[in-house]
């Protein structure tokens, strides 16, 4: 997909140049961990509580990126530029979802160790592989739904508000699976690998919504 690669390259180049989204996501996450420390009044947390705090924080940080995903297209004529080219239009969906996925991975590379440092009681070593897999599947869900919702929201007047209120309910099943899957991983003497049930839900969710997004995305672009 030459087109998707071109768009993705352009987006990553833009982010490197402007550094608008990623630093904000990272700062937001770390600040949120600090807030949770005070709000819960705990030195360390573990188990399901830790999983909940981590996943909720990542979810809301993702919302920041989702709100900004198509803003440059909307404000600087990027949609027209893309629509004028003789290319498959769903490549835009693929490229933007890939960009969002990339941002989330970079975020987690920094935020998860920060979480382990600041709040997590048990060691992150043993369950790390399982956690990475779980978060990877969750990131796909966030990327697909986020791109879809962002494309819808960017054409509305209340852009920053519409994105989260539509996206968050849609993401609840993925959130459930990720948080519940991570709970045992982050417990003291907990499991090393997430239960298959949660991975299955995430995988199903990813496949269904990826296919659905692919089917409807064209309708969001045409005029």
């Amino acid at each position, binding site marked *: 997909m030459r087109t998707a690669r071109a768009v993705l390259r352009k987006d990553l180049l833009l982010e490197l140049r402007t550094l608008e989204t990623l630093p904000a996501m990272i700062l937001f996450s770390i600040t949120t961990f600090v807030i949770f420390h005070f709000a819960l009044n705990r030195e360390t947390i573990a188990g399901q509580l830790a999983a909940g705090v981590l996943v909720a924080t990542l979810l809301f940080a993702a919302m920041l990126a989702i709100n900004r995903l198509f803003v440059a297209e909307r404000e600087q004529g990027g949609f027209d530029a893309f629509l004028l080219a003789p290319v498959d239009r769903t490549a835009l969906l693929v490229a933007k979802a890939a960009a969002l996925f990339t941002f989330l991975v970079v975020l987690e590379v920094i935020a998860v160790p920060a979480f382990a440092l600041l709040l997590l009681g048990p060691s992150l070593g043993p369950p790390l592989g399982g956690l990475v897999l779980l978060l990877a599947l969750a990131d796909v869900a966030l990327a697909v739904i986020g791109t*879809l919702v962002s494309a*819808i929201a960017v*054409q*509305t*007047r*209340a852009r920053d508000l*519409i994105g989260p*209120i*539509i996206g968050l*309910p*849609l993401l*609840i*099943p993925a959130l*459930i*699976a990720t948080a*519940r899957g991570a709970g045992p991983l982050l417990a003291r003497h907990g499991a090393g690998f997430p239960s298959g*049930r949660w991975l299955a*839900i995430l995988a*199903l*969710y990813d496949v*269904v*919504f990826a296919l*659905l*997004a692919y089917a*409807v995305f064209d*309708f*969001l672009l*045409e*005029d």
Partner: protein
Amino acid sequence: MTTYGRGLRGLALATILTTTTALALVFFYAPLDADQGFIQKIFYIHVPLAIMSLCGFVIGALFAIGHLRTGDRRYDMRSYVAIHMSLIFGIAGLLAGSIWAKASWGHWWVWGDPTLVSFLIVLLLFATYQPLRFSIEDPERQARYASVFAIVAGAFVPLNFIAVRLSQGFVHPRVLTLSGGNLPGPMRLTFAVSLLAVALLFATLWKYELAAKNARIQVRRLRRELLGDDAVAPLRRSAAPS
């Protein structure tokens, strides 16, 4: 020209008849539940409302598919009415469910009931449908985006129920017996009639609202043709299709 008014009177009559029958059955025929007593009868309004609401969302999604495939804005109107009515029915059903929960288990809300919880999430999602429409000014784009949303949200409903159900380790037994399990004969009949009554009510209101909207659009169109574009005041920004 589409008319929605045809058959409306008959439908309304059928609705009134069925509703009266259902109420009679609920109060005089259905036996009292051994555990919960009289308050259990809320079940006959809560579950049909919830079922109809979910069906309505799915119907809305189907009409939305029709709209995207054909570009015919009438599908969008049908979809819009179905969804916003399902939201109203759903909120009513949720409130009824809450009252039932309070009477049965002493709490206005129980997280232990996966159906109720899933339903809340679905309502939270569909509650964004009208704000979404309202915030897109171009009517064509509004209709298209609303249809995309309706389809995605419609697909979300079953996925959501599965995920929430799987996440519940403990499911309250009482709920299962009454909403999924075996109902004794008289209760089953009462429930069936109640469900039919709610469905007919939904259909009647749906048709009625479509007829009213359609009439308004025809009037505007006629005025434009006869008096010119300037004689008709532009529509205010609206969530409804025009």
